């Protein structure tokens, strides 16, 4: 049993590495107008269309985190601002944004590709003279790698703003003061690192969804299987990347 699991895990890993190599070697194809259109469509679907959910989630998370931390540690404390920056801005924002994208886009991409595979549309594309991997996989993987950092940046902006607003409203402190103390303590390199982390999470989610969507069994059962596997594996990948960055930060400090 364990041999079966390890061989399957090894197979998945090889496939994911193959897709990383594929993106690295074929990314110049995105200069083609039709592939760029596909890329913009993916960025819109995974990024812009997710903004209402992200906005609401970020507003609620920011307000909750700021008021709870203020209640526990005190609004004046530098510790509150540090925890807001490290906990909410650096950790939670990329993680929650990635979870939203996994829930929305990963299942969507995997099931769309599985349906296309079921209807033999990969072959139809090849017969049209269009390389199926370039047209279907490349824009999706690159699109998610670009969309997730943008979504994360929006999450960070909205959640921190709502946190400042909540602090100002409930504790009667001027908004500029709360914002000023946070910005004094914020580390721009960590802000940049959180976006790099998001880009990696986006790439991982895209690669996993594309692999499961394009390689499952050709049946109606295979469509739901592809969606479930891509969401499950995507979640694991997101948490693994998050832990890896947390360890990296720990080692660097």
């Amino acid at each position, binding site marked *: 049993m364990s041999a079966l699991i390890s061989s399957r895990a090894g197979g998945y890993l090889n496939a994911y590495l193959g897709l990383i190599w594929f993106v690295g070697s074929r990314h110049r194809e995105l200069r083609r107008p*039709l592939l760029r259109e596909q890329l913009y469509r993916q960025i819109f679907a995974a990024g812009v269309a997710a903004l209402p959910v992200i906005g609401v989630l970020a507003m609620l998370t920011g307000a909750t985190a700021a008021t709870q931390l203020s209640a526990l540690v005190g609004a004046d404390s530098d510790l509150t601002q540090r925890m807001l920056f490290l906990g909410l801005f650096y950790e939670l924002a990329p993680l929650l944004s990635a979870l939203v994208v996994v829930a929305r886009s990963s299942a969507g991409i995997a099931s769309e590709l599985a349906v*296309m595979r079921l209807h033999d549309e990969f072959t139809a594309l090849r017969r049209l*003279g269009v390389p199926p991997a370039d047209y279907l996989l490349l824009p999706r993987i690159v699109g998610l790698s670009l969309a997730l950092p943008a979504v994360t940046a929006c999450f960070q902006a909205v959640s921190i703003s709502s946190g400042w607003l909540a602090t100002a409203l409930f504790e009667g402190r001027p908004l500029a003061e709360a914002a000023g103390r946070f910005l004094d303590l914020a580390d721009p390199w960590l802000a940049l690192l959180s976006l790099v982390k998001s880009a990696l999470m986006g790439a991982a989610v895209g690669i996993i969804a594309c692999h499961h969507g394009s390689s499952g069994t050709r049946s109606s059962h295979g469509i739901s299987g592809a969606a479930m596997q891509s969401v499950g594996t995507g979640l694991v990948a997101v948490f693994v990347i998050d832990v890896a960055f947390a360890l990296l930060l720990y080692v660097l400090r």
Partner: protein
Amino acid sequence: MTAALQAAIANRQLTLAAGDCPHLVLRLDAGGRHRLVVGDGGIARHAVDALERCPGVGVLPANGGLLGNLTVADNFALLLRYDDDVDRSARDQDLDAAFQLCGLTPERIAVLAREQPMNLERSERWKLGFVRWLLRPPELLVIDRLFTGLTRRQAAELIAVEAIYHARHPFRPVLFVDLDSHELPALPD
């Protein structure tokens, strides 16, 4: 024809063989219609797959081979714009002319452009797929199991449409891969 089928092109001649036994030999610049009749769908699929692996061979399946989730207009945009190095106005004129040659009126084309191929009749889907090869003829066009499930009238109509290809590209051969059936319509000479 049970051994693995393999197709190869050498000296402008295509050979489809199972092991050492050749089943079909075609000269690529001689034009004309040819027919490969096989016993069942599995063999037909293997034969088409083997032929398709040869460079310069185009396959037209019975359903036209267009993408079901795109509109007809998007399908043609994908086909014509992927290698965006063709003069656009000349390309659009060619496309209109090809549609009309296949018996599609400008009004019908306008309606079809917004439809998804999966919502069209099979013979109309086939015609649209055929227009694609009419514009970009391959060295050998393989027409895969066109007549399965068609009435005599529909088959005769599509054979008439196919004749346009020979008139436009007289030196490009067409190979019909068909299932062995007593309903199989005769091909014109």
